[in-house]
C-alpha cells in the first residue's frame, strides 16, 4: 500500500462543471455491481437459507467462539506491537538520515508485495524450533511456531506496512515549529513527544493500527502454517471457515464469514467516522 493511500483528502468537490459524469458513473456502477455486489449475493443467499436460530447456533459454537478469542486476541497484540514498531520505523524514516535509509524504506512494503503463502511457509521455517530464529528463541523459553505468538507474528508481518505508511506522511508534513514550540516551552523529549507529536499523529496511528487489525482478522495464508491449529488454543476464525468448506457446509462457512465481514466493515466505518471528526476539529469547522 502506498504512502498516501489512507490519507483523508479534504478537497472540495465542485458542481458538475466537468464532463464525464455519466461515463465514470456508468463504469463504476457496472463494475461495483458485477464484480463486488453480485458475488456477495451468493454469500447472502446462503445466509438466507438459515433461520436466525441456526445462524446463532453456528456463530456461537464454542469452538468458533474460542477462535474469535484467539483471532481477536492475536490480532490485537499484533496491532499493538505494530503500532509501536510502525511508529518507530516511521519516525526513524522521517526524522533521521542514515546510510541504508532508502533500503529500509523500500523494505517496508515487502509484506504487501510478498504473497501471503510465501510469507507463511517462510515464517514457519524461520521460527520453528530448528529454524534460524527458533533456535535462538527456544532456549529463552519463547516458543513462537505453533503457539498464538506465532499467529500474532504472522499477523504483524502481513500488516506492518499499514501503520508505517499511514503515519509516515503525517509525520513528514508536521511542521518543525511544533517541535520547537514544545522545546521553547521547556518540554523534555519524552513530554514533547507524548503531548505534542503523538496527539498530532494519533488519527493516522489509530487508522493504520485499525487497518492492520482488520487485515489480521481475515488473514489465512500466512498464519495457517505457523498456527499449530490446536482446538480452542490456536485455531483462527479463518480456519473455522475453511473447515466448514471442507465439510461442504457452505451455509456454515458463509455464516462465520459474515461475522468477520461485518466486524471488519463496522470497524472500517468506525475508523472513518472517528477520523473525520478528529480532522474536522484540527482543521476548522466552527462550533
Amino acid at each position, binding site marked *: 500500500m502506498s504512502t498516501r493511500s489512507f490519507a483523508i483528502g479534504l478537497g472540495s468537490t465542485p458542481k458538475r462543471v466537468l464532463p464525464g459524469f455519466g461515463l465514470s458513473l456508468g463504469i463504476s456502477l457496472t463494475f461495483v455491481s458485477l464484480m463486488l455486489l453480485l458475488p456477495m449475493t451468493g454469500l447472502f443467499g446462503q445466509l438466507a437459507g438459515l433461520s436466525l436460530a441456526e445462524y446463532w447456533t453456528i456463530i456461537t459454537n464454542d469452538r468458533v467462539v474460542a477462535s474469535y478469542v484467539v483471532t481477536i486476541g492475536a490480532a490485537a497484540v499484533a496491532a499493538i506491537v505494530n503500532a509501536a514498531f510502525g511508529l518507530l520505523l516511521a519516525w526513524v524514516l522521517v526524522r533521521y538520515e542514515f546510510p541504508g535509509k532508502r533500503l529500509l524504506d523500500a523494505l517496508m512494503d515487502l509484506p504487501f508485495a510478498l504473497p501471503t503463502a510465501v510469507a507463511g511457509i517462510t515464517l514457519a521455517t524461520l521460527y520453528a524450533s530448528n529454524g534460524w530464529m527458533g533456535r535462538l528463541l527456544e532456549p529463552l523459553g519463547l516458543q513462537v511456531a505453533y503457539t498464538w505468538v506465532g499467529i500474532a507474528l504472522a499477523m504483524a508481518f502481513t500488516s506492518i506496512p499499514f501503520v508505517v505508511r499511514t503515519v509516515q506522511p503525517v509525520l513528514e508534513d508536521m511542521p518543525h515549529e511544533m517541535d*520547537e514550540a514544545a522545546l521553547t516551552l521547556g518540554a523534555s523529549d519524552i513530554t514533547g513527544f507524548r503531548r505534542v507529536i503523538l*496527539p498530532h499523529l494519533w488519527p493516522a496511528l489509530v487508522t493504520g493500527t485499525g487497518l492492520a487489525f482488520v487485515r489480521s482478522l481475515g488473514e489465512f495464508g500466512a498464519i495457517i502454517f505457523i498456527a499449530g491449529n490446536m482446538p480452542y488454543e490456536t485455531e483462527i476464525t479463518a480456519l473455522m471457515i475453511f473447515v466448514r468448506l471442507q465439510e461442504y457446509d457452505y451455509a456454515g462457512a458463509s455464516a462465520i464469514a459474515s461475522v468477520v465481514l461485518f466486524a471488519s466493515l463496522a470497524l472500517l466505518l468506525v475508523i472513518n467516522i472517528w477520523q473525520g471528526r478528529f480532522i474536522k476539529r484540527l482543521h476548522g469547522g466552527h462550533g
Partner: protein
Amino acid sequence: MSIRLHAIGKHFGKTQALEPVDLDIAEGELVGLLGPSGSGKTTLLRIIAGLETADREPGGRILFGERDVTHLHVRDRRIGFVFQHYALFRHMTVFDNVAFGLTVMPRKQRPSSGEIRSRVHRLLEMVKLEHMAQRYPAQLSGGQQQRVSLARALALRPDVLLLDEPFGALDAKVRQELRRWLRHLHDELNFTSLFVTHDQEEALELSDRVVVMSDGRIEQIDTPDVLYRRPANRFVFEFLGDVNHLEGSVRNGVLTCGDARLAVDLADGPEELLLRPHEVELAEKPAAHAHMPVTVTAISPVGAEVRVELAADWLGEPWLATIRHADYERLALARGVRLYALPRHWHRFPAERDHQPSKTVATTS
C-alpha cells in the same frame, strides 16, 4: 535580563548564513532584527533561542544577564518564542496551549493546577481572549491565534521574548493593531524582546533599537531615528525607505546629468547621489543651485502626504517625491505638468568606503 552575543556565527554546510557577530541588548529593550530574506536575521534569532547551534569556531558566547547560555539546551534557556505561523498545538484548546509550558514543568516546580488555571486566565485576559479559552486554534482568526501564541510564550515568565516575524502572516490592519498592542505589553511587563521582521516600517515603529542585517552581517545598530537620518552605509539607506538616484559627473562643483545640473561640494569625477522622496521639493522655477526639469507622471494623494512620480530624459528610473497636501494644492499638480525638482538633502556612499558612515549634505535652497 540583558542579552550579550559575542562572535556568534553560523554555517549551513558550506554556506555562511551568519558571519560572527557581536550584539548587546539592554534589559527591557525592544529590539528589531531587520533585513531582507537570507540576511541571517532569523538564524540569529534562532541561535539566541537555542533552536540552532552556533558554529564552534570562533568560540562565540551567548549571555543572558550573567548567565552563559551558549551550551544550554533550548528548553533550559527560559525564553519565550513566538513563531511566524503561530505554531499552536492544534489538538489542544486555547487554554491548554497557554498552559502547556506550565504543565510540562518538572513536578517539583510545577504550580498547582489552581494556580495554573488562574495564571492562564490572567494571560488570556491580557491578550483579550478569555472568552475563547475552550476553543481550538482552528476556530480562531490569524490575529487571535498569534495572541494565543504570545500568551503561551509569556506563560513561563521568560527572561527574554523572541519573536520570529510575528505579524508577517497577518493582513495590514490586524498587523498594525497587534504592533501597537505588543508595544504596550512590552512597556507594561518590561521584558527584553527581540523580534525579526523584513518590514522596515514595522521595525522603525516598534523598536527601541534596530539591528539592520544583510548577507549574514550586521550593517548597523541604532535607534530608528539615527538609523533613518544617519544610515551607516548605502545598504541601510536603501533598505530603510524609498530612494531616488542621481548619477552624473562633477566638474568645478557642479554635477551634470543630461540637462540637469546641481551644485555640489565635491571633487571632480563621476558621482552617484541618493535622495529620500521627502528630500525632494517641487517648484515652478529652477533654483540657483539646481536646475532639474521633471514631468509629473503619477500622483497618489492618499495618506498624510502626496506621493508624486517624476520622470525626465536625464533620469534612468523615475523619482518619487512626497509633498504636503498644502504644496500639492498650491502647485496645482496634475499629470503632465512640468516642474523643477529641488533637492534639500542628498546622501553619498562612495563605493570603496561601503561600510563607512555616510556623508550627508544639506543644501540650502
